[in-house]
């Protein structure tokens, strides 16, 4: 299993990667351009305001006259209103872009996840995939839309300020700009360190949350293991770590702001010294001096934002890489183009069930390996007639679950082929097989929602009557109708509000309502109480009736009612026949059944 390493900090700014990300921006091209345009306006207007101050001072105050001040006030108010509107539009558009882009990425990601093969899911932990679909995408949406805002605004405002300054007085402009390089250096340096420290703090914080989680969810384990003190000691170590790195992070932020202030005041001091002298010598006007006071401290905003956004972008590269690699993963099992052209795919298919499926399954010299050189099935052949019930028996690792996975085309043979109704199943669509398949897992997975919703999952068109009938068939109706809300009872996340046995029964109802031609059951080993056990057994018998069935069997009753028992060992069939035949044969099955220590397969 792959270790999950999140929050890596990549070394270099990767333009190629951001270009790839840019592809996802294509549908938002207009929006992005509009946003950039507005931000340029905001930046320019921001640079205009100090100039207005200069105008006021030179034309009214030092001139000692007020004619035209009314007009000036009107223009000023007009500009303010315009700027406020720009800001309104800017946030709305950036928000539209952010939410739209993340929505798209999530949609594309989700659709792609539906197509990826199960082998992909076998390798990736759910938490790993969740992180990509949630926090990584959120970070990307955020960084791209607000990145446009910050970058365009930062550059245009700086550029416009510089242009204005140069236009007013180029010498004073150069003096003022002297503080720009150290300001840029300091900002980038601090933003980078602060980001790293903040991430460290976040990481420790999530470990603290994890510890609380364990301390609370594992309360019983802690008590019975008498681990209270040790847990607390470990926790205190963690919080101490949290304290020291939080303080460290706070120290850097506490250092950065004063440094920036000092640099700003240095600019101010320079303007005062050089500009003041100019005013005395009458080479500058008062207004120029005051306007430059503003320009001198105005650089901090854009420089800070640019440093912020570029460090974040560098950090978000890891997110971009992860999301892109997920979206670009090719599914191992998919319909061939010809098949797709003929039958459509999951999202477009019009005739869902395609040509009728009868249920004859034929394994022809099938070999399969998960890892190269480690075959799990070797030259496996098995012909199953329509409606035949096959019980698969064997020790863990004998290959019985692989047979089932191949039959349901969750995996495909490495060599050999599998025919369904005489046709290689690769010549038909996945949808065709899967919509005719009933698959019940050892650990039944229910979706949150009501019992009704869950049963309906097997057949979306089913009405209440059908749902009830299905539940009755598999003996689930009795317990459901005893619940206060009956079929409308919420099952909770993962169905956790129901007992294991009840979950089983609901999952049976879900399978049977789909009316599949091929039925696959991985029987649960877990022992449940006797009453439930009986209900489940009779439900299984009913489900298999008239359907081609593959059962990884643990219950004796299931095995006995099978038409044929396939005994597997190391990926090969060692014996097959009915229960009685195999017992008479006194071979591997006989010993398995009776076991060495009074135990067996059941």
């Amino acid at each position, binding site marked *: 299993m792959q270790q999950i390493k999140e929050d890596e900090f990549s070394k270099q700014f990767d333009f190629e990667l951001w270009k790839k990300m840019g592809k996802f921006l294509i549908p938002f091209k207009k929006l992005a351009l509009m946003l950039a345009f507005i931000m340029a306006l905001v930046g320019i207007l921001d640079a205009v305001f100090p100039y207005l101050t200069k105008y006021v001072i030179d034309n009214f105050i030092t001139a000692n006259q007020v004619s035209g001040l009314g007009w000036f*006030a009107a223009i000023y108010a007009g500009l303010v209103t315009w700027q406020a509107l720009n800001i309104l539009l800017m946030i709305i558009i950036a928000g539209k872009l952010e939410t739209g882009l993340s929505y798209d990425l999530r949609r594309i990601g*989700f659709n792609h996840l539906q197509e990826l093969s199960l082998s992909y899911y076998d390798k990736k932990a759910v938490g790993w995939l969740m992180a990509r679909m949630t926090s990584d995408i959120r970070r990307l949406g955020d960084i791209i839309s607000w990145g446009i805002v910050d970058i365009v605004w930062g550059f245009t405002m700086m550029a416009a300020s510089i242009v204005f300054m140069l236009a007013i007085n180029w010498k004073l402009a150069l003096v003022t700009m002297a503080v720009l390089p150290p300001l840029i250096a300091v900002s980038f340096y601090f933003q980078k360190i602060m980001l790293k420290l903040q991430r460290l703090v976040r990481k420790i914080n999530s470990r603290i949350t994890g510890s609380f989680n364990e301390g609370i969810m594992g309360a019983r384990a802690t008590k019975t293991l008498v681990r209270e003190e040790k847990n607390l000691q470990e926790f205190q170590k963690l919080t101490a770590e949290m304290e020291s790195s939080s303080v460290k992070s706070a120290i850097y932020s506490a250092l950065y702001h004063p440094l920036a202030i000092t640099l700003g*005041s240095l600019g101010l001091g320079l303007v005062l010294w050089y500009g003041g002298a100019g005013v005395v010598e009458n080479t500058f006007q008062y207004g120029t001096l005051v306007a430059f006071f503003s320009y001198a401290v105005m650089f901090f905003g854009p420089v800070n934002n640019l440093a912020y956004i570029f460090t974040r972008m560098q950090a978000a590269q890891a997110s971009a890489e992860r999301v892109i690699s997920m979206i670009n993963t090719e599914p191992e099992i998919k319909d061939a183009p010809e098949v797709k052209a003929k039958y459509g795919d999951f999202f477009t298919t019009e005739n869902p069930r395609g040509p009728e499926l009868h249920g004859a399954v034929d394994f022809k010299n099938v070999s399969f390996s998960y890892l190269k050189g480690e075959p799990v099935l070797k030259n496996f052949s098995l012909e199953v007639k329509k409606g035949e019930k096959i019980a698969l028996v064997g020790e863990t690792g004998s290959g019985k679950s692989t047979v089932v996975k191949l039959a349901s085309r969750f995996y495909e043979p490495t060599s050999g082929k599998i025919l369904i109704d005489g046709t290689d199943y690769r010549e038909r669509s996945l949808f065709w097989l899967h919509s005719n398949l009933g698959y019940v897992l050892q650990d039944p997975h229910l979706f949150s929602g009501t019992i009704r919703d869950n049963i309906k999952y097997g057949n979306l068109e089913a009405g209440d009557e059908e749902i009830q009938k299905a539940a009755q068939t598999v003996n689930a109706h009795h317990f459901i109708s005893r619940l206060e809300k009956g079929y409308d009872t919420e099952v909770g996340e993962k169905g956790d509000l129901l007992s294991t046995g009840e979950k089983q029964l609901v999952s049976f109802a879900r399978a049977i309502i789909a009316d599949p031609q091929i039925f696959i059951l991985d029987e649960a080993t877990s022992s449940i109480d006797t009453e439930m056990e009986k209900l489940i057994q009779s439900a299984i018998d009913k489900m298999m009736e008239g359907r081609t069935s593959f059962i990884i069997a643990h219950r004796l009753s299931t095995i006995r009612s099978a038409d044929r028992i396939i005994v597997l060992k190391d990926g090969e069939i060692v014996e097959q026949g009915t229960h009685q035949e195999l017992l008479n044969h006194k071979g591997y099955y006989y010993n398995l059944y009776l076991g060495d220590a009074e135990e067996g397969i059941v």
Partner: protein
Amino acid sequence: MSQLTYIWKLMKGNRMLYLTAVISLFLATIFATISPMVLRITIDSVIGEEPLELPSWIMSFYHNLGGREGLLGRLWIMGLLIVGLNILRGIFLFVRGKLAAQAAESMSKQLRDNLFGHIQHLPYTYHVRVKTGDLIQRCTSDVETVRDFLAVQVVEIGNAAFMLAMFVTIMYNLHPQMTLVAVAVIPIIIGFSFFFFRQVRIRFKKADESEGRMQTVLQENLTGVRVVRAFARQNYEVEKFDEKNDEYRNLLYQVIRSMAHFWSVSDFLCMMQTGAVLVVGAYWAAQGRLTLGTLVLFTTYVGMLLWPIRQLGRILTQAGKMFVAIDRIREVLNEKEEEDSPEALKPEIAGNISFKNVSFGYEGEERLLDNISFELKEGETLGILGSTGSGKSTLVSLLARLYDYQQGSIKIDGVELSRINKKWLRKNIGFVHQEPFLFARSIKENITLANDDVSEDEIYDVARTAAIHDVVMEFEEGYDSLVGERGVSLSGGQKQRLAIAQTLIRDCPILIFDDSLSAVDTETDARIRQALRNNKKEVTTIIISHRINTLAEADKIIVLDQGHIIQAGTHKELISEEGTYRKVWNIQHPPEKRKLLSKKGSVDYAAN
């Protein structure tokens, strides 16, 4: 307000730090106030020709520098003065930031530690009824709310208030009418942002909840991917997800739109405020009622005030949140911890257990156990059979004092259970649960959770006994593999086996298996029990199971039904009498199999 006194209590030990931080903040604000005044003096009285009116000590300083004439030639002195003042301001800002963070972090560490330790010691009954998600939230996000408030918001509020007071005083002394113009919009901005953030909180919450729903759909799709595929429901899932995805997009967009309204309105107000100062100031300055330097000072002050003032409304709304968070935290801390009386005993435990007429039930509810009596001698094994809800788990929980019995008497080696120290007792009982909880650590660490003073060999030994060793060796990182979401995922049976290993390494005189082999297949179940038999010295064992094979070899077996013992005896006795035990036995061991086995000469089966 009781919340404030509570905060005061929390700050104990950090009060000096906090006080120094506040003083630094005041000093920083004072320096921030002075530097625009230097600017004003420079403009009006150095470059300009206004007479200076300042306290005499500053005046003497001024004359020492050569008065106006001297400074005019050396304007760099004024520039340097401004830089110097800002450096001083910066130093105190730094001190404030550092100390406030130290105080707040140390306090939140204290709070977290208190919560964690406290929760660990709350009685099991508390954990059974509490909603875990809510409790975790109290320990994490509520603590953070309090921390943010102390580290950031108190400081910001103090900053804004102090700045406002300083600036207004100075401005008022310089020009009262102009001061009115300069602060006219401030109350409006504070009020506006306060009401805005109170309103928008609902939208934030809605968006958060919607995100949660979207994540649930995603999570369920990913964990249930096999079901989705088996029913070919990809299309349905895509639609389901799209609906939530779309809903979240819209709600988040609503939030951002509100923010857009807030920022544009408040920016508008702020810019208008600056404009008003500029225009009105220019009007009066042109008439000579205001100097240019004073105008520059006013615009600078207004510029410095606007940002913190805009934050003020937001912070005030968060103060409300903080009060709620404190109440929620205190509610947890006020729960009573599990206690042992100081004279509780710590006897040597050999493993003789006796239950005499024991009854138990939650207050006001039907009894879960009624009149239970049995005896178990050192080294003996008790098997318990019973359906869900029969009281089996409650029975063994009483023995570990996870619950306290209300009637009857339980004795271990003749000592009444309620007189034995709880931790001491639990140290002597190895308890394996049906759904064991594993910690997000390596497999090795999980095994040695309760006893880390063991060698590698001992770890492998117990792992072999619990039939988990081979499984572990197959993992890429063996015993160092992490367990859980971020590591290897174990099946229910593997978890149970790991929990068995974890218990065996403790070497307890009493072992309880609470249906803890239920998810293990029968073969492995048998192997584990065989290994246990070979291993164990004189360990008193209680096994709960639905499998007769698992129970058969116990010295005593009891059958529970709705809190009562309905049958008791040995396997032989029980299969020879009418009753639940024999019924279950017949289902699990059909006559055909028994016949074959008896032919093979197996003792147990021959009995029937």
